């Protein structure tokens, strides 16, 4: 049973446990996008990165793919890790601003501006749909194709595979399918662009879509954070680049 140190705490785990699982076992929150229990780890979203020391060097490694070993020393929230995550999520928002999940993560990490030109993609290539189809639904009807900037999730030859049973698992597991609220200033790249309003949007707008689970940005814009004064984003950051 390997013993490792996470944030100064010694923890003994079963052989084969990943550092991500060990950290979550200790109650330490590590953000992920491409991870799902029951699917093989993928290591593509890079949000679960932690700082690891082997005695000589400190490197950043994806905790979802890192097996817990004796003598490993891990920091999950060092300043290097937090900076990396914040810069990562800023880029995620620019690529996929319509995703509620990504917007919530950005708000939680305190991202205040998005400096990249916004794209409007609806896929972050986390691979959850591909892996779910293959490993949980035993169908393998969709997959990746292409490379680099031309890479995408597709059906072979753009024809629905005979293996596809139209089960919808791919839609269910997608982390960016859930759209953010269509409330005021929805064209801004970053959700907390509407931090300057103090009430939750549906009380002010009849036709705003909302969720039982309010968007993080709206939550922290609530009465508890009325002392925070954030200027609305300037138009410079609202240009959406058409693909």
């Amino acid at each position, binding site marked *: 049973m390997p013993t490792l140190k996470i944030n100064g705490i010694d923890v003994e785990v079963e052989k084969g446990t990943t550092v991500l699982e060990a950290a979550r076992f200790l109650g330490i929150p590590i953000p992920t996008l491409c991870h799902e229990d029951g699917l093989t780890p993928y290591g593509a979203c890079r949000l679960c990165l932690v700082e690891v020391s082997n005695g000589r060097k400190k490197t950043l490694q994806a905790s979802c793919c890192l097996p817990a070993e004796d003598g490993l020393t891990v920091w999950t929230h060092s300043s290097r890790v937090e900076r990396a995550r914040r810069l990562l999520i800023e*880029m995620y928002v620019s690529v996929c601003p319509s995703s509620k999940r990504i917007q919530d993560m950005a708000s939680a990490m305190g991202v205040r501006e998005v400096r990249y030109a916004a794209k409007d993609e609806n896929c972050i290539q986390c691979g959850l749909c591909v892996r779910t189809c293959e490993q949980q639904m035993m169908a393998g009807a969709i997959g990746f194709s*292409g490379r680099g900037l031309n890479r995408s999730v597709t059906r072979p030859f753009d024809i629905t595979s005979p293996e596809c049973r139209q089960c919808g698992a791919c839609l269910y597991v997608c982390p960016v399918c859930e759209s953010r609220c269509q409330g005021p200033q929805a064209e801004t790249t970053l959700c907390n662009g509407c931090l300057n309003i103090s009430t939750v949007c549906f009380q002010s707008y009849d036709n705003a879509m909302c969720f039982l689970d309010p968007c993080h940005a709206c939550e922290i814009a609530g009465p508890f954070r009325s002392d925070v004064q954030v200027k609305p984003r300037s138009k410079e950051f609202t240009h959406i680049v058409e693909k």
Partner: protein
Amino acid sequence: MLKLKSPHEIKELQLCLEASETSRPCISVCAGSGCKASGADNVLAALHKEIEKRGLKGTIDIKSTGCHGFCEKGPVMIVWPEKVFYNGVSLSDAKDIVNSVTNGHKPVEKLLYKDPNTGKRVLHENDVPFYAGQKRILFGNNGKLDPKDIRDYIKVGGYAALGKVLTDLKPEEVVAEVKAAGLRGRGGAGFPTGMKWEALRKSPVKPRYIVCNADEGDPGAFMDRSLLEGNPHSVIEGIIIGGYALEAQEAYVYVRAEYPLAVEHLSHAIAQAESAGLLGDNILGSGLSFRVHVVQGAGAFVCGEETALLASIEGKVGEPHPRPPYPVQKGLWGKPTVINNVKTWASVPVIINRGSEWYSSIGTEYSKGTMVFSLVGKINNTGLVEVPMGITLREMIYDIGGGIPNGKKLKAIQIGGPSGGCIPASMIDLPIDYEALTTAGSMMGSGGMVVMDEDTCMVDVARYFMEFLEEESCGKCFPCREGTQHLKEILTRISQGKGTEADLELLEDAGWMIKETSLCGLGQTAPNPVLSTLRYFKDEYLAHIREKRCPAKVCRELIVYEIEATVCDGCHACVKVCASDAILGEKEKPHEIESGKCIKCGACIEVCRPKAVLVH
């Protein structure tokens, strides 16, 4: 049919070949890809014809050899036994060359190398400045042997190291020798080879595999190609020794698809080695069984990354795996695997033959031996250069490279391909070794050295590399896939005069993030061209941003083509080639360019004799 049954027989054969070496004149013509493209095949054909015509067959030998390295002056050749070096040969020179051999070996003056500094003609290869500064322990034999004849290799001492290893050394001793020599991986990262081999031997898992990384994807680098085309046996010998030392039975050489000649010569050499008893079962009677397979790449730069390469051999997409586990623990099909670069493998027989002490006496404290560079770009003497580690950039560029053509000023030297960085001209006295280059923000890489002059725009160079990387990224991990696209987008805006100073900070932040968070070496080094150009050439970036000016006059949105009326002689040549019909003018009268239509393709500049087209 050559068949060697013991190490002793190799030595015997070598002595026999040396003894039978006559003083018969031999013309060895370089037939590497570079000289071939310059017409070496025609030269060879013309020489054969001339010799045939004069009935001199059997009196004068003609050999087609591997790359001599001096590609700029190709086709090149050496006439033995005087070792006269000819360059820029064309097929019409065949008669003169044959004459010079028959008429008392008086050399053909016009084909001798002319030293641009002294104006004097140089007779021997070793006196040519390009070669004088080199130490060609890996490439030196290229000019002496026909890559398709194993006997030539044996004559110069080939396979003697294998013989020595099989008779005198135990596997662990071979590893110790390589470690003592201080050999570091020549593929780019420079990991100590001996340590890698030791790590593999620790694993009890069998079978083990050997892989040779010949995916040389760095644009501007062609050392591995030349070695595989010109002296494939040197690489094969190294691999077999590796197989013995690491107790592996199979090796795979992964050659990129763009090198058909290298694949051909390598496969031919393997077949020859097999029939000679140097590969297969019971090699040289030692009981060692070893096979080498050639695998072709399919056009993906990322397959130069070791874990992606292994995935490609397994028939999958070239997507890298996170490390650990390293290939020495879990490599090809999950088994322990040692992957090394072509030059690393070719260094092994040299180390065995001449000893680790000799090898480690060359180079610097931590970077031993020689390094092979492809010296290309804006330099007079382009070609392959093998130098001891520790030589300065100044010696490389000016002594060996012959300086910058057309009297232009040196601006930067890009080392290490897309993973490397640009070193500014001010650092020209930097010694070349692994650590010095990394500290300077660049990387040794696999040896590509691209020289840039004052007409190169560093913003354009950074953008060029990002364009390369966004296509070649495997696309699996987010920071590399999206990050390279964003970096390119920002650099494109800057090159078009639409950048802001905030963009420079953004480039630094994004660069840091991509370096820190990417899954593999491609992503982790992708921002290097951007970060190094920002570090040393910030003023150029600022000129693009603040003044909307490209100092090197390269970025198309920021330049204007204009015809100098006083210089233009109205010859009308430019009008004929203008891509967008943007030039107006009557013959004999000065012409004019309509800047609204001009797409700055540069065709007019190419054809204008009086050089009347100016770029602002």
